[in-house]
């Protein structure tokens, strides 16, 4: 099993651990090779010692040589001893690579397929969903049941005291927090998705059940049109100076009803910030907030309908809106861009980076508390994924391993051990304010990252070496009625037309929907500047520039 290319940064009570698992595995392989060479050296030394001993029978002067060589062979600093030490070093490197490997293990990679196959197999019977739900419950509380069974085995006649019962109830109440912290939550989610999928007919035997179920539900939702409303007087937001500043920009982009949103900021607002550097160059930062509405088809597009579409890999309104906002802001094709988002916003940022490959010079994507989406940024785009170990939202993709594609700087922070709440609630663990602090910790740790690392290069490309002059524009995204006429001079945004729910004979799904769409077509439509607008109902939008 190979390891995924990328860096792993763990922030816990022992400080930070930064590991490049791929590098470590290569180093370990080289060390093992060196140990083998030292074994060979030991054999050669033994041969020389034997020859010297043989010679000593005739030449008294050779006695000292024979003794010296034999002693060296037995010494801890002899080739054999050194070979053992080098192997130990190789083992340590391999262990660290395995502990911080970003890639799915073979078992993890097979898990989704197994769950999918299970869902497919049991769906034919009337008890299929029940069996899957039982399996999910077993994964969730299996450790408690095993502990109970062990106690019964050790003391079959033992009686439970009131204190024991209270402790058991506390353990039971703590299950959600524990299965999130140890990653079992993702497995439970996959089983639940497989159960629901088996009911709805989304049980492809070889497919990720979470994605397939999300795509199925998202495909059933009605198409929504997007309208971008420019903010006439957007706040003056500071230029980001690192990962902390980037996440802070996303935090300030939330609506004023939140703890971090700037006063007057409406729901579902997107920030596009232009950075004019002293050397005349220009770069951009696009910040996207997360989910703020529980519904599936309401007027606020940052809702669960968008979450399902993003997770299922089908077209979503927020990706389309951000593309239109970027086009409207006038981002040049060769001007470096950083995309940052919290929660759903990170999923959108990743999607946008994937869709705009070759059209914009996206250098960096920063996601905070975001589940993975099927699309991945293209090679050359540095990615930073921030995740709190106690954050349940980032597990909603059903993934077991770390987040982000190849080349990602994957950050996992233990909130309780690094100055966060001791027992954070799910909302505390997911709060964007906590991720701003995590960004600050990442900035501190970046000093240990090689200067040529893609993330450091991307940060320098976009943010520059010195503070830049900033121009902030914001647009508010709404999903208005298709009948809303286009505003004069506005920016038409094509409607999101969802593909029909994937269907195939015998209840199995066929090929996944074509998403992301071809970049050129999408950008032409999103920009709307002379491009053809689809025949469907459209609305208009503009962007504001401060």
């Amino acid at each position: 099993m190979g390891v995924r290319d990328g860096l792993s940064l763990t922030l816990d009570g022992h400080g930070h651990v930064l590991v490049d698992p791929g590098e470590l595995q290569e180093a370990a392989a080289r060390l093992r090779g060196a140990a083998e060479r030292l074994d060979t050296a030991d054999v050669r030394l033994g041969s020389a010692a034997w020859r010297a001993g043989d010679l000593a029978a005739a030449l008294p002067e050779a006695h000292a040589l024979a003794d010296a060589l034999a002693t060296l062979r037995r010494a801890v600093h002899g080739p054999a001893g050194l070979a053992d030490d080098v192997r130990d070093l190789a083992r340590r490197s391999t262990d660290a690579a395995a502990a911080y490997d970003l890639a799915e293990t073979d078992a993890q990679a097979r898990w989704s397929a197994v769950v999918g196959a299970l869902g497919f197999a049991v769906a034919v019977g009337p008890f299929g969903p029940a069996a899957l739900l039982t399996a999910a419950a077993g994964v969730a509380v299996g450790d408690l049941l095993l502990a109970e069974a062990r106690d019964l085995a050790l003391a079959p006649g033992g009686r439970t005291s009131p204190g024991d019962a209270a402790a058991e109830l506390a353990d039971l109440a703590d299950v959600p927090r524990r299965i999130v912290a140890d990653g079992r939550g993702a497995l439970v989610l996959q089983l639940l998705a497989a159960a629901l999928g088996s009911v709805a007919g989304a049980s492809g035997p070889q497919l990720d059940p979470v994605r397939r179920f999300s795509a199925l539900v998202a495909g059933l939702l009605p198409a929504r049109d997007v309208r971008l409303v420019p903010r006439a007087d957007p706040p003056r937001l500071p230029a980001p100076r690192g990962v902390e500043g980037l996440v802070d920009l996303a935090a300030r982009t939330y609506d004023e009803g939140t703890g971090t949103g700037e006063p007057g900021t409406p729901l579902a607002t997107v920030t596009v910030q232009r950075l004019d550097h002293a050397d005349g160059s220009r770069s951009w930062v696009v910040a996207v907030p997360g989910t703020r509405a529980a519904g599936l088809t309401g007027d606020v597009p940052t809702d669960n309908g968008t979450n399902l579409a993003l997770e299922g890999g089908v077209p979503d309104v927020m990706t389309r809106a951000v593309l239109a906002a970027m086009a409207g802001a006038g981002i040049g094709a060769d001007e470096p861009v950083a995309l940052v988002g919290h929660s759903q916003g990170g999923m959108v940022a990743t999607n946008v980076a994937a869709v705009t490959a070759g059209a914009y010079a996206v250098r960096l994507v920063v996601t905070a508390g975001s589940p993975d989406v099927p699309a991945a940024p293209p090679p050359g785009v540095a990615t930073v994924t921030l995740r709190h170990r106690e954050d349940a939202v980032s597990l909603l993709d059903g993934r077991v391993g770390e987040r982000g594609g190849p080349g990602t700087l994957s950050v996992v922070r233990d909130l309780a051990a690094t100055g966060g709440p001791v027992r954070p609630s799910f909302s505390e663990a997911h709060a964007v304010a906590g991720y701003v602090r995590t960004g600050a910790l990442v900035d501190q740790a970046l000093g240990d990252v090689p200067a040529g690392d893609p993330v450091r290069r991307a940060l320098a490309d976009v943010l520059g070496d010195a503070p830049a002059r900033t121009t902030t524009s914001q647009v508010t995204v709404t999903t208005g009625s298709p009948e809303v006429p286009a505003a004069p001079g506005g920016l038409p945004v094509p409607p999101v037309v969802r593909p029909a729910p994937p269907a195939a004979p015998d209840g199995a799904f066929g090929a996944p929907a074509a998403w992301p769409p071809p970049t050129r077509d999408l950008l032409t439509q999103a920009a709307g500047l002379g491009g053809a607008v689809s025949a469907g109902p459209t609305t208009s939008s503009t962007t504001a520039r401060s």
Partner: protein
Amino acid sequence: MSTTVIESALADVRAHLAAAQVVVVGASAVTWTGAAADAADGRRTALLAAVRTCRAALDDADRLLAAVRRAERQCVLPAPLATGAPVGGTVPPWG
């Protein structure tokens, strides 16, 4: 001669040792921080010190080998050649 064989073997040992040293030094360039990395770094430093000690021991062995080689030459040099006597006049006791 036996010393030639020993010399060749010790040269091989040096070559393998040098190669291993390069790998161990190179292993310090990987991106790895934290307590485990610090521990590994300590092991690496100790290992490189051991490599130096091994090399010093090989230097000592080389000096001893040179002495053996000189003795071997003296023994092999036929006495008749040195004295002008006919070749084959002396047979070494070990030969």
